[in-house]
């Protein structure tokens, strides 16, 4: 049986995805869904736990904005033993962080239905606000982002630095992927399931518009490869600009301790769990090695220190690198393409 399906969007990908999430809610008998939504006239969507499927009409999983990495919040809900099953719609970097947090703290994720979306990259919050003002509404900005899905998103330099360097904007290791890159989002988007039992369990055959045409799958794969190459060049350029910033674990520890009063970066990190206090370079190295590349640290840093680039440079030299990597080659995700 096929694991790749598609949705006909008929000019409005956002509306089609909202409807699809509603259908998924039904077919998976969800009790709730964690997804970014517009609530109370706010300009920016926030991640919320919805318990009423009707509120999905305000959901926006594609908004080019990331205020926080949802992994930590989700792991806490998992640990609290929430009454499942719950759906969670996440970006690739959130999924990478979630897997890492779950592994380190033994959080059970079975009660979650994990839905990953192709990330169209995000703006810094102030840029997002300005662009929303320019185009009129946040939903309009999401539509603009979707318009450029076929091109693999807009020009890199307009996005957050972490997104500019992200070589894996396609989700991996989830139950369901919503594929956008390389596709004309106004016509069709891809739905890829983990395996055949998942397809049957979620009744994908009836809630999608059928098996994905091979040319859509090929376009999606080509764009994933192009994005990985494009962003690889950006990573090399960013690394060249790092200059004398900390180049190994000890230097980074010293650097972070020196700007201790703030700690905004540590608080923003979905994975951080007091490693810096341990005064053991190995513990810190393990934390750095597990970096999901979401760049929340850089966004939170008052002086916008290029932490993701720094960490990438440091961990490349670490022995026995393990854990997810935002610079992982496309091949490791090929099962999800």
């Amino acid at each position, binding site marked *: 049986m096929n694991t790749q399906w598609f949705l006909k969007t008929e000019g409005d990908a956002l509306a089609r995805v909202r409807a699809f999430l509603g259908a998924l809610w039904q077919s998976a008998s969800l009790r709730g869904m964690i997804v970014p939504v517009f609530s109370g006239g706010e300009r920016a969507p926030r991640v919320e736990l919805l318990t009423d499927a009707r509120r999905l009409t305000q959901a926006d999983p594609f908004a080019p904005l990331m205020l926080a990495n949802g992994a930590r919040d989700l792991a806490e809900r998992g640990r609290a033993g929430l009454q499942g099953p719950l759906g969670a719609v996440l970006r690739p970097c959130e999924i990478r962080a979630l897997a890492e947090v779950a592994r380190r703290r033994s959080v059970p994720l079975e009660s979650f239905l994990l839905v990953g979306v192709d990330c169209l990259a995000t703006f810094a919050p102030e840029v997002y606000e300005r662009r929303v003002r320019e185009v009129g509404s946040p939903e309009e900005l999401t539509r603009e982002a979707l*318009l450029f899905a076929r*091109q693999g998103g807009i020009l890199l330099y307009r996005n957050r630095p972490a997104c500019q360097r992200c070589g894996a904007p396609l989700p991996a290791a989830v139950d369901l992927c919503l594929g956008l890159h390389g596709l004309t989002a106004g016509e069709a988007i891809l739905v890829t399931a983990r395996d055949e039992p998942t397809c049957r369990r979620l009744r994908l055959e009836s809630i999608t518009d059928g098996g994905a045409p091979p040319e859509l799958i090929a376009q999606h794969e080509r764009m994933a490869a192009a994005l990985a190459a494009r962003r690889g060049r950006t990573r090399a350029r960013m690394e060249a600009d790092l200059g004398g910033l900390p180049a190994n674990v000890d230097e980074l520890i010293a650097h972070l301790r020196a700007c201790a009063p703030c700690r905004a970066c540590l608080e923003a990190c979905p994975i951080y769990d007091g490693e810096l206090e341990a005064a053991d370079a190995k513990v810190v190295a393990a934390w750095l090695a597990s970096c999901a590349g979401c760049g929340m640290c850089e966004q939170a840093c008052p002086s916008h220190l290029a932490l993701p680039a720094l960490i990438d440079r440091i961990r490349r030299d670490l022995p026995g690198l393990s854990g997810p990597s935002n610079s992982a080659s496309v091949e490791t995700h090929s099962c999800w393409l």
Partner: protein
Amino acid sequence: MTFTPRIGVYVCHCGINIAATVDVGAVTQWAAGLPGVVVSRDYTYMCSDPGQALIQNDIRELGLNRVVVASCSPRMHEPTFRAAVSAVDLNPYCFEMANIREQCSWVHPAAETTTQKAMHLVGSAVAKAALLQPLEQRQAPTTPAALVIGGGIAGMQAALDIADAGFEVTLVERTSSLGGHVGLLHRTFPTLEPTADLLGAIVERATHHERLRVLTEAEVTAVGGFVGNFDVDIRHGHEEEKVKVGAIIVASGFDVFDARRRPELGYGVYPEVITTPEFEQLSQSEVKINGREPKNVVFIQCVGSRDQALGHPYCSRVCCMVTAKQARLVRERLPNARVTVFYMDVRAFGKGFEEFYDATRQAGVLYRRGNPSELIRRGDRVVVRAEDTLLGEPVEVEADLVILAVGMAPRADTDALAGLLKLARSSDGFFMEAHPKLRPVDTAMAGIFLAGACQGPKDITETIAQARAAAATAMIPLMRGEVTVEAATSVVDEELCAGCGQCASICTFGALTLHPTKGVMVSNAVLCQGCGACATACPSGAINVRHFTFDQVMAQINVVSDFRAPVFSAAPAEAEVASPS
């Protein structure tokens, strides 16, 4: 077969303009080691015939396929060198220029870092040259019509010449009548001919010419397009209309200097103090002030001219002769009145001017050299206080009529018009010509020309001469019927374009449109002027400007980005000033 760049680098001394500050030999030697460079030479004047021949010879002998000249601004000699390489069958777009004069030797002291900067500029040009692509220049048809902005004597003359040559002309005048400032004059110098005689005939012809459409109480509200094909929006009364023209002549004139900006001269306070334009009106009837004929008349020259403090350092050129003319008129009309002229220098440069000035003095007008410091009231008269700089002593002259020879100032709305037409202004505030000597009626914008006092102070003779020159130059594209369009235009990558239309919304030339079936934008190579605004606006980087592609520009940036300008400390200079030695 893969393309291998064979680059020739030519470093110009520009006499001592570059060579005195930059170590030209070192730059030349350094450039020889750059990737792709086959030959690197220096020469005293690259733009001279032998300099050009040097390049042409190397192209033939060494098989160069890209040429870099490091010399002045491309605005100066890019056309020269493009023509030179074209003459030996190298595409003009395979030529690149490094500006090591305006952007280096003229603005830095002679130092090691200045030479290093020149090297970086040359290196960046070489990096771009390796990536240059030959481009084909195309021709576009022109609209056989012209627009003239301003209905003064300059605008009318230019409009008449173009209309006489057989082209349709639209003349836009802001006020309700034609004639401008000349219409307010009584007589002209040096012939004392009544102005009405010469202006009347021109206005009459302009009003009734079959190919000249005069729009009074009208103004230009928007200008789009390019040379040969301008689209102009005109507000005419309450109506809006659009006209298509091939060339535009700006003849918007000047403002009279506001004498209230010299409060010590009492203009606007004492009724006895008037300006030269006001005397023109006065002299058309009885010359009376406060109800009686004045017995002592004083002229004060250079009011609002040659005055650094007021920001008018330039000479207004006409006031000396206006004063001489008016002083003569006073002597004729009021033979008993004493006439004194306070002057800084008398500039009687035109044909018959010096003779006229001599005749004025022989008619009994007293010229005293000195710039009056103030006017004060004494009884029912005013007193002009000045220092006679020839006698070296202070003088006081009582007067019952003081005439201020006010200068010419740029029009208050010059900025607005400059914005509409994208014209540059010179430091005096008037519109700037493309070259002070060689292109005095052209502007930096192709197809837009200047006539009359909007470009700088002028008398009627010069205004007419410039108007006719502007008309003749403007007719070149109209006569030819086609213009060469810029080959460095934007090009849309259909793979990357999402058809969002942001580029079209900012393109002032209307060059970008949505392809009806493909859903991507298309750039019209004739309308596109290569400004590059679309390339920066495109969210997905789908638009490149030929000759300035991302790759080419990034290659340039990569070369210059490792250059660090030295940090100069202000401390030593201060210490030197402070020290008693």
